[in-house]
């Protein structure tokens, strides 16, 4: 069982055996960006049968072969990677350096939802695609509505 001492289990500590692999270097950062759709939208099939295509094939990405066919000295520092990194930094209100700095690594290691940030579902029309791409603009809601001014009171 998970270790705890207090009656309400509030001090429960995970065993530490199953720890998520944290982003720490260029390779793990590029896997993160690919996994959550920052390099290109990840197909997120709605049907439960889960016949989802395997996540974007990283090997093409790793070989540093960009569409233009140029090869790069370090496999992960492709324009695709830098562009994805900048997009990630922009939407997470980080300094847009295009470099894997500490702030970016911390942001990547925050607890998050497993659904990709940029995804396509077969059912989603292209229109939904462009909506997803425009930063900060949720599907259909208009920004000019004033935010409800008051902070939420406890329910």
């Amino acid at each position, binding site marked *: 069982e998970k270790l705890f001492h207090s009656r309400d289990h509030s001090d429960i500590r995970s065993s530490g055996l*199953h720890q998520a692999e944290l982003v720490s270097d260029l390779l793990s950062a590029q896997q993160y960006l690919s996994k959550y759709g920052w390099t290109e939208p990840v197909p997120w099939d709605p049907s439960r049968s889960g016949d989802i295509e395997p996540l974007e094939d990283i090997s093409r990405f790793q070989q540093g072969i960009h569409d233009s066919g140029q090869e790069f000295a370090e496999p992960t520092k492709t324009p695709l990677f830098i562009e994805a990194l900048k997009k990630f930094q922009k939407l997470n209100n980080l300094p847009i350096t295009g470099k894997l700095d500490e702030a970016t690594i911390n942001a990547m290691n925050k607890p998050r939802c497993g659904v990709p940030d940029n995804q396509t579902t077969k059912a989603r029309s292209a229109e939904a695609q462009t909506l997803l791409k425009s930063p900060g603009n*949720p599907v259909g809601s208009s920004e000019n509505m004033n*935010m409800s001014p008051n902070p939420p009171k*406890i329910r």
Partner: protein
Amino acid sequence: KKRFLDMLMYSNKYKKEQEELQKAGKAFSKKLLKWRLIGEGYSSQLSINEQRYVFRLAFRMWSEVMPLDFEEDNTSPFSQIDIRLGFGTGRHLGCTRTFDGSGQEFAHAWFLGDIHFDDDEHFTAPNSDNGISLLKVAVHEIGHVLGLSHIHRTGSIMQPNYIPQESGFELDWSDRKAIQTLYGSCEGPFDTVFDWVRMERNQYGELVVRYNSYFFRNSWYWMYENRNNRTRYGDPIPISTGWQGIPVQNIDAFVHVWTWTRDSRYFFKGALFWRYDSENDKAYSQDTQGRRYPRPIYEAFPGVPSPIDTAFFDRRTQHIYFFRDVLVYAFDINRNQVAPSFPKTITSFFPAVVPNNHPKGSIDVAYYSYMHSSLFLFKGKEFWKVVNEKERRNNPSLPLNGLLPKRAISEQWFDICNVHTSLLKM
């Protein structure tokens, strides 16, 4: 195990339904969605009741802002369950996306489908401090299942990263509009709507008047916060919870007779009426002459038929206006009788400013709003605003008590949404 997976993944009914929705590509088309915390997917960290309570609250929070109801269903066949929730670790519940252990990914959801939570994460129930709030994650993932993607906007529940929250979180205006883009806004007739006026002393000891707006429907009600453009968080709640001694459902009207000498509040239902004690917040059991409440309407308001559709008190004329079918009756509270030349047709007493743009009769609600300093007549999903004095001064051509063209109630009073009766009492 194989049979279970087949049942879970490939039942024909489910696939047909999903293809239909996929064609639409947007959202569920049903108005009542069934959900279940699957038996193989209980968390090892919270009691089952705690888990179910959190999910009930999470579904209620969405239902409070959109025209969909959610009901927990632990008995129907699996294929009829719309949203299935479960906890797992690593490779789990036949899912193709493996969890990564404690840290980083804490849950995922399938559009129009299932929600899985990583049980290696330290999920906590509401009001406990450290750990990841299961409620907040559940509301986020339900948002995905309903069709929302990640939204990179401060304050949105659909931000991909988990943001710890000191006190309770709520769905803000933009998240509400985002989901209503997919499902439409909440609409429907009301039984009665009124502003409840209170006398209070401010910090300087001065007597001040405050009011709160209430919307009643069936056996529940909302308080509407005008300055926030939304209902109170956590509404609707049962009438029986907030209002003692009055009928617990289908109130016909509320009237506040408020003059220099009188301050009486009445609830009407059917042939009867109740007087409400504002000081002690409950209905009076009897009047000053010892007559027991509820009393027959005809007894205290001679000449007024019952049941009525609705009613309101006009402080300028000191008349209570009772509506029934296509007629309106003006009751003079000082002479205790229906005023001469009444009843009149509603179309004549409240003439349409734009020809034929008029509710004609069977008015649901006559609501005088202090916020808008205007009387509104509600019928079904729409309202007609009665021309007020200020508007007539600016435009003398407007008729007395003229009705301006109708508008949708949901365009002026936002997000007044039902919740499933099983979620009414949390």
